[in-house]
């Protein structure tokens, strides 16, 4: 009888544990969804003085119910430094006027698209979304973004960034900041191997071979089969002269063959297909990888985590032309929400002073070319990214971009894992893309 009791108790425990595990994924979102919480924590770590505005927000939140209109922002940055910087701008804005009370909510990147889709059909959207630029066109087609044509001066912004939020000649967003990919290399390892930074694919292959040892692979690039992977693949595709929609061409096949050769020669690990850009960076600072393709947003973390590591950044080696991919986020205003308040905040946040503050804290490059060019010192590690931006092109903009992107990342994954020849992978991807883009 006693054993039965123990068993039922254990079973009950197990069931409750199971229930909690079930809630885990959504519960986690809520825990981290609170910027104020994260900001508080960070503030305590960095400087006690910074804590005040965060707690002030909590109190003014209640006051907001009385007079000021509440304006909400959704964003997906998980880095605490990013959250704190954005929060700072929001605090300053709230303190500067009394009409609107802005609050920001963190939605994890993996859930961001889902939340926007669900929000759109359930009519529960924020007033401002800060979203990944290649997805912009899809949501414009969904009809949830306000037309901002003529409301913001984006004349001095990078053309690619403006294009990413422009559909049919109308402006549906404001670029937040831009970034692109470039090649990082471990200076000490290159010196030891007696090599210079590679500039062409042939040199890259040679250098990577020379750098590969038992414990070090020459090159790593994030190759996961989703948008993040596509982001890392397209510079190689575009460098051959192919565009996103002509992967089936001879040039497209050459790009796939080159990546496959990197893997076959053992200078790039197959495990890249399970490495996010953050994982790639971790492998690089751990000294397991000698060169990597990555973005400027890794720099603050790298400087903090591995201050003694000697690394430099250079342009991604080229096949027939230098090429990189434009990334970054755009602000978008949701129509049907509190458009006036959203516009008022955006006007404030896109002023030169605030842009400089945000870019500096984020490790981003301003989407405003005029600001970007004087943003960094000549020897700053960010400077190569500003140069690389001249060769960076946006993905899309196309409402069906997610499907095109899926075809491209599938093709690269097929050649990396060796499940298809470059010719077959290219042909299959081309057939998919032709079915989407007529």
């Amino acid at each position: 009888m006693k054993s039965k009791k123990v068993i039922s108790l254990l079973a009950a425990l197990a069931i409750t544990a199971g229930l909690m595990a079930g809630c885990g994924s959504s519960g986690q979102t809520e825990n981290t969804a609170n910027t104020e919480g994260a900001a508080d924590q960070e503030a305590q770590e960095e400087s006690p003085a910074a804590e005040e505005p965060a707690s002030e927000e909590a109190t003014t939140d209640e006051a907001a119910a009385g007079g000021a209109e509440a304006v909400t922002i959704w964003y997906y940055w998980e880095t605490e430094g990013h959250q704190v910087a954005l929060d700072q701008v929001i605090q300053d804005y709230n303190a500067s006027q009394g009409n609107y009370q802005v609050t920001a909510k963190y939605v994890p990147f993996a859930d961001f698209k889902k939340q926007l889709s669900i929000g759109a059909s359930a009519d529960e959207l924020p007033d401002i979304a800060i979203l990944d630029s290649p997805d912009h066109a899809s949501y414009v087609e969904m009809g949830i973004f306000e037309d901002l044509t003529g409301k913001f001066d984006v004349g001095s912004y990078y053309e690619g960034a403006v294009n990413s939020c422009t559909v049919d000649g109308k402006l549906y967003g404001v670029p937040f900041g831009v970034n692109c990919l470039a090649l990082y290399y471990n200076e000490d390892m290159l010196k030891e191997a007696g090599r210079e930074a590679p500039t062409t694919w042939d040199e890259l292959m040679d250098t990577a071979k020379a750098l590969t040892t038992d414990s070090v692979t020459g090159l790593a690039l994030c190759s996961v089969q989703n948008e993040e992977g596509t982001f890392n693949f397209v510079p190689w595709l575009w460098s051959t002269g192919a565009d996103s929609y002509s992967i089936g061409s001879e040039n497209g096949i050459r790009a796939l063959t080159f990546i496959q050769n990197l893997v076959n020669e053992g200078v790039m690990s197959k495990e890249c297909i399970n490495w996010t850009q953050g994982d790639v960076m971790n492998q690089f600072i751990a000294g397991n990888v000698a060169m990597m393709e990555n973005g400027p947003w890794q720099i603050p973390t790298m400087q903090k985590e591995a201050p003694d590591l000697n690394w430099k950044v250079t342009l991604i080696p080229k096949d027939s032309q230098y090429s990189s991919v434009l990334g970054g986020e755009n602000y978008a205003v949701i129509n049907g929400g509190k458009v006036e308040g959203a516009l008022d905040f955006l006007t404030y946040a896109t002023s030169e002073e605030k842009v400089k503050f945000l870019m500096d804290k984020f490790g981003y490059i301003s989407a405003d070319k005029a600001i970007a060019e004087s943003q960094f010192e000549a020897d700053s590690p960010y400077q190569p990214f500003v140069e690389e931006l001249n060769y960076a092109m946006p993905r899309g903009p196309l409402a069906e971009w997610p499907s095109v992107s899926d075809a491209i990342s599938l093709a690269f994954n097929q050649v990396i894992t060796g499940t298809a020849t470059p010719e077959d992978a290219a042909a299959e991807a081309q057939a998919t893309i032709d079915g989407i883009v007529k």
Partner: protein
Amino acid sequence: MGKVKKMFRYDNAGVLFVLPAFIYMLVFVGYPIIRNIILSFQDVSAGNLVRGVKNFIFFDNYLELFQDSVFRTSLFNTLRYTVLCLVFQFVIGFALALFFNRRFSFAKPVRGILLVPWMIPVTVTALMFKLLFATDIGVINYILRSFHLINKNIEWLTTPQTAMFALICANVWIGIPFNMILISTGLTTIPKELYESASIDGANKTQTFFSITLPLLKPTIESVLILGFIYTFKVYDLVYVMTSGGPVNSTHMLSTYSYKLSFEMFKYSKGSAVANVLLVILLVVGVFYIKATTKGEEA
């Protein structure tokens, strides 16, 4: 007065008691299912989710799906994964239950400890197995190498065939305690007198197992297998964390593919069609479960 009295007659009062549960089911289970079925008969994508006409194309989404090789792979994967997981976790769980049913010191605490895998959140287990099966830094390759069973690291999670194997290993590990505990409970319900009289009659261990233990455990075994099937068939988090359906779509399950279509590619209708295929299969299994359990009650 008479009318009110009539309303509270025994039979009608029963209906009233059922009503809250019925309304709850209708709103929180019935509505989403019906909404999802309607969605799968339409052509909803990014363009007409919020505004615009949602055309009814009826079974076109389903027809398209059955020509889609990724869908066929994920359907086959889900079945293969479920059956293999069930077989291994049931056999091992059964063996452990029999083992811990014997009276020896520490039997109870050890059985308690064995429940731990089932209590750990699945995402944590998934991350743990992802690290165990990593190619260059993974513990499994390290062990195999130190025993000279392999010369070259096995690329567990980056080769289609072995990735599925890794997923099954992880899920079997999670599922064993569930099987063990339910079968253990079942074993305690078998009267000891039966075993005693069997031994007096001179039955050996094998005979008692097949003539007493198995037949009397039948209702428990049916429940374990059917609940296990449902739990395993709708797997999502484990796959999403360990492989995200990769490499090259080779480990997509119905659930992960449905998510990908709906929320990564904005093909809402096609995604809901995949979810409905999942629903229909589970519905069939669920009917079997209800039949099996009600039969048990009657007996």
